[in-house]
Structure formats: C-alpha cells, structure tokens
C-alpha cells in the first residue's frame, strides 16, 4: 500500500493530475453504476420474492375453502375468503385423539415458555455476573464445557435425562420440560450476560466492593438495574427458542403439556382422508405467530441477540 503514496509525492506533476482523472473516473463510474444498480435491485427484489413466497402462500391458503384449493392455483388469491379454517385450526381440528384444535397447545406453550424464560434468564444473569467479576476457581473451565454443550445434539444427553427424571418422578410433567429448557438454554443466556458484563468497568464493581457490597447486593442493586438491554435481548432469544422447540417438548412435556409445535405436527400427521391444507396452514401460521410478531416488533434487538450470541462465541 505504501509505495504508490511515495510515488505520488515524488512526482511534482501528480498533484494536478488527480483532478481530471478523478472526474473521468466518477463519470464513468456513474454511468456504469446505473446498469449495475438495476442489477443489484433486480437481484434483491427476486430474492425478496423467494423469501416472501412461503409466507404469502401460507396466508392465502389459510383463507381459501377446500374447493378452491382443489381447483388448483396455489398462488391465486382467494375468491371467497373465509376465516373458517382459522376457527377450525384454533378450536376444532383433531390433534391425535382429541378434536379441540391447537388452542390447548397454545396455552401449554405459554405455560412452558414463561417459567423457562424467566428462570433461564435469571440463572444466565447470575452466571454471567459471577464469571465476570468473581474469580471462582474452575468457573471458566465449566463455562467452556457449558458453551461446547450448546453445539452437541440433544440426542447425546436425552436418554440419561429421561431416566433421571423418571427416577425423580417428574418425567412427563411441566417441571420436567421447564428444567430441560433451563438446562439447554443456559449456555446462550450465560454467554449473553457474560459478554454484557465484560463491558462494565471493573472500577464500578471495585467501588461497590469498597462500599461493603456483597455478592448478591452488588448483583441486585448495581448490575441488574443496568442490565435492561441485555435482558430484553435474552428474553427475545429465549422465548423464540423455547416456543419453537419441538424435540424437547415431544420427549419431556408429557401428554398433558404438549407444546404447540408438537400439537401442530400431530394435526398434520393424524389427518385422515383428504388433507385440509387450509386448516393446516392456518394452524401453522398460528404456531409461528408469536415468534414472528416478536421478530417484526423487535427486529433490531433480535438481530443484536443473534450477533451477540453467535459472533462472540
């Protein structure tokens, strides 16, 4: 990079040259840019269509009566739009033995998501705080293994966990599924808080120590109040993760607390006779609605969560 700069300064004629050269370059670039920019927008527009296509098809399919779907034209707008499939999906469709729609699954998912989110965030915050400010022996090694655990397929741990929970008498219950979500949500939550507290000046912590603050007092009165941004990000990530989980709910939640994703899959798999595509799509939208709404409302925070959770790992 340096030789050209030396070259330029070595030639007294050069200082005049850049002006016309740059003008030419700009004009050239400007003309070329219009063509290039059309290409850029065409590419982005096509890509956006591809990404939006499934959402569009989901919505129009869920609003059509079955006759229209059978008549073909998956992309066609509904002629006689109806909300009947949505009603069916919410409160009428069969999820296995019962035919009460997926609203039961919705409330189960709420019941699972709320404690799983609150507890995991709290544990993650305490972990991150302790890791950042208190030098506990062996803590960093434990944290390293915890992080590695986030990348391991749950199938490696699932059977022993089932056995332990069966021994403890909680297998197939709400506490079991919440506990499992806390276990598998802990790596990312801890990472988020640890990275956040790493940006807090050590002097602040030292000052609180000198003022006689203990472990919990500093956590509750100094650290937690300034953790609101990371709590929001952590909440978004954990709610999305728990809500979208399928395999853990399937194994640990038990028949009475199956989350919405499992019930949704049951709806589609247990259909007898002709498939009710419209009802299926309405049920799919209903299941995806909460994380999607969360994403559209909190877009920037969502991206920040991904970046904070992933890049610094």
């Amino acid at each position, binding site marked *: 990079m340096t030789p*050209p700069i030396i070259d330029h300064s070595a030639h007294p004629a050069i200082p005049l040259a850049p002006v016309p050269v740059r003008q030419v370059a700009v004009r050239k670039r400007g003309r070329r840019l219009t063509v290039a920019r059309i290409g*850029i927008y065409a590419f*982005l527009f096509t890509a*956006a269509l*591809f*990404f939006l296509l*499934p959402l569009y*098809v989901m919505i129009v399919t869920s609003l059509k009566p079955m006759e229209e779907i059978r008549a*073909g034209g*998956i992309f066609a707008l509904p002629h006689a739009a109806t909300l009947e499939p949505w009603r069916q999906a919410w409160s009428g469709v069969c999820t296995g033995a019962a035919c009460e729609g997926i609203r039961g699954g919705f409330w189960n998912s709420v019941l699972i998501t709320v404690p799983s989110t609150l507890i995991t965030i709290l*544990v993650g915050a*305490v*972990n991150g705080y302790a*890791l950042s400010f*208190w030098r*506990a022996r062996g*803590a960093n090694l*434990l*944290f*390293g*293994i*915890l992080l*590695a*655990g986030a*990348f*391991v*397929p749950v*199938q*490696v*741990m*699932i*059977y*022993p966990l089932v056995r*332990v929970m069966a021994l403890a008498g909680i297998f197939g219950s709400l506490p079991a599924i919440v506990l499992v979500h806390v*276990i598998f949500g*802990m790596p990312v939550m*801890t990472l988020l808080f640890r990275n956040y507290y790493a940006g807090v000046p050590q002097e602040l912590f030292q000052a609180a120590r000198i003022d006689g603050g*203990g*472990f*919990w007092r500093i956590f509750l009165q100094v650290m937690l109040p300034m953790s609101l941004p990371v709590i929001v990000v952590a909440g978004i990530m954990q709610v999305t993760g728990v809500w979208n989980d*399928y395999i853990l709910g399937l194994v640990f939640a038990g028949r009475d607390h199956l989350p919405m*994703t499992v019930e*949704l899959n049951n709806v*589609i*798999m247990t259909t007898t006779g002709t498939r009710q595509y419209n009802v*299926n799509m309405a049920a*799919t939208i209903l*299941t*995806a609605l909460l*994380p*999607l709404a969360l*994403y*559209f409302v909190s877009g920037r925070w*969502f*991206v920040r969560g*991904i*970046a904070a959770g*992933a*890049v610094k*790992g």
Partner: protein
Amino acid sequence: MKRTFARITPYAALSPMALTVIVAYVGAALWTLRISLTSSRTFPSGEFIGLAQYQRLFDNERWMLSLHNLAVYGVLFILACLAIGFLLAVFIDQRVRGEGVLRTVFLYPYAMSFVATGLVWQWLLTPGDGIDGALRAWGWHGLHLDWIVRQDMVVYTIVIATVWQASGLVMALVLAGLRGIDPDIWKAARLDGIPAWRVYAQVVLPMLWPTIATVLLLLSTAVVKLYDAVVAMTQGGPGTASEVPTKFIMDHLFLRSNVGLASAGAVVLLVPVLALLAPYAYARSRKEAT
C-alpha cells in the same frame, strides 16, 4: 464465619451451572457412552459387550443411509447458505434503498420453527396441488416438481426448506462483519482503481474470516442436529430415503426399544461436533493466553 460465607457465595451462585455441566452434560454423555457398550434393549443393562453395538450400527443399512443423507445434505446446505447469505449481504451493503425492509424480509424465516418451516414447504412442494400444479396450470407440462415423493430427490427438498430458513442468519452476520471493515480500505481500493468484486473476493473475504468461521460452526452444528424439519416435512420418507442420524437415534430410543444401538449412534454423532469445536477452543485459548 461471615468471611467464609462471603467467600463461598460465588461458588453457591454458580452451582446451577456446575450441576448442569457435570450432571446434565458431561454425566449424561458419559452415561450414553456407557450404555453404548452394553447389550441394552428396552432398559439399560449392565452386560458389557464391547464395541458390538458399533459394529451392528455400521452394518445397519438405515444408519449408513442416514449418514450418507446427512453428508449430502450438509455439504449442499452449508454451501447454499454461505453463497446466498454472502451475496445478499454484499448486495445490501451497496447503499440500497429500503435496506431495513430487505433485512427484515431475509431474516424473518429464522424466527420460524423448523416444524413450521417443514410444513410450509411440504405444502408448497406437494405434487399436484402445490407449486407443481401451478406450473402445470401455466402450461409447463414437461416439469414435474415431485421431488418430495421421489427417493432420489427428497434430500434436496429438505435443503431448500432449511436454506430458506437459515440463509438470512448468514446474511445478518456477514453484513455485521462488512460494516465493521475499515472504510479506508475502500478508499484505497478506489484510488488504485480496483473493481469492487475483486476487493470483495481478495481483500474483504479474507478479512471476514472470523465471521465466516463462526457461521461455519453454527451451520455445521445445525446440520448434525437436523431433526425437526425432517420429521415435519417427510418423516424420513418416502420409505427411508430422507432418514437422518438424529431420527434414527430417536426412533431406536423411543419406538424400537433398542437403547444400546441408539446410544452408539449418539456417540458417533458426538465425534464430528467435538472435532468441529476443537479448533475453535484452541483459537480461544490462544487468544486468551496472549
């Protein structure tokens, strides 16, 4: 008394993490390893049979097929996600209008569960009624989009669905990386008259290496974990054409009462994950040492 109490408080506070790591992660994985060395069927048994389960596993046609599927799926999924995500990020980075809208559009599938993703694409790819029917209605009779019911093509449908779901993530991470690059590099390149695509290929891409390493780690562990999308989209079918190792393990654990064989499969899955994590852990420890 008070001082010792104060000293153990951090340890007490970290005990949930310690329990999780020691019992639920390491302990459970070791137990799985132990079970894989026994003749366990419905329940764990104490009868050690050495590596016989592993031998059975690699003689099992369904397991070998699921490994093969995972390899094909993994290569295509990672390459497609990287290519699409990188292109989207670079094009968005050209100071385009509506950047916020575009980013939202490309990333929203990532907020959807694999189950929902699988079910939507199952409907889109249903022969006759899905896109296939629309193509025929538009007069393209030669085209049969029946991949999802064809044994030789079904894996590609899972690639399409999951790439749709995950490439926005690559876009978001690469875009964040691009925004972190020193603008002086662009000024210098412009002065030297180097075309933009060459700057991207020869200067920016190498500089984004840490981002790409992270993306690769995320994508490849997602490959190994692939389960929900397959269950929702094809249930491993038609026949066993889209079986994957995670599904093989789940079926043998909970439906076929062959815990020993399933545990051997789980241990085999652990190997590539640890191999992927090793260089990452090494880089981290070196960074911390300096």
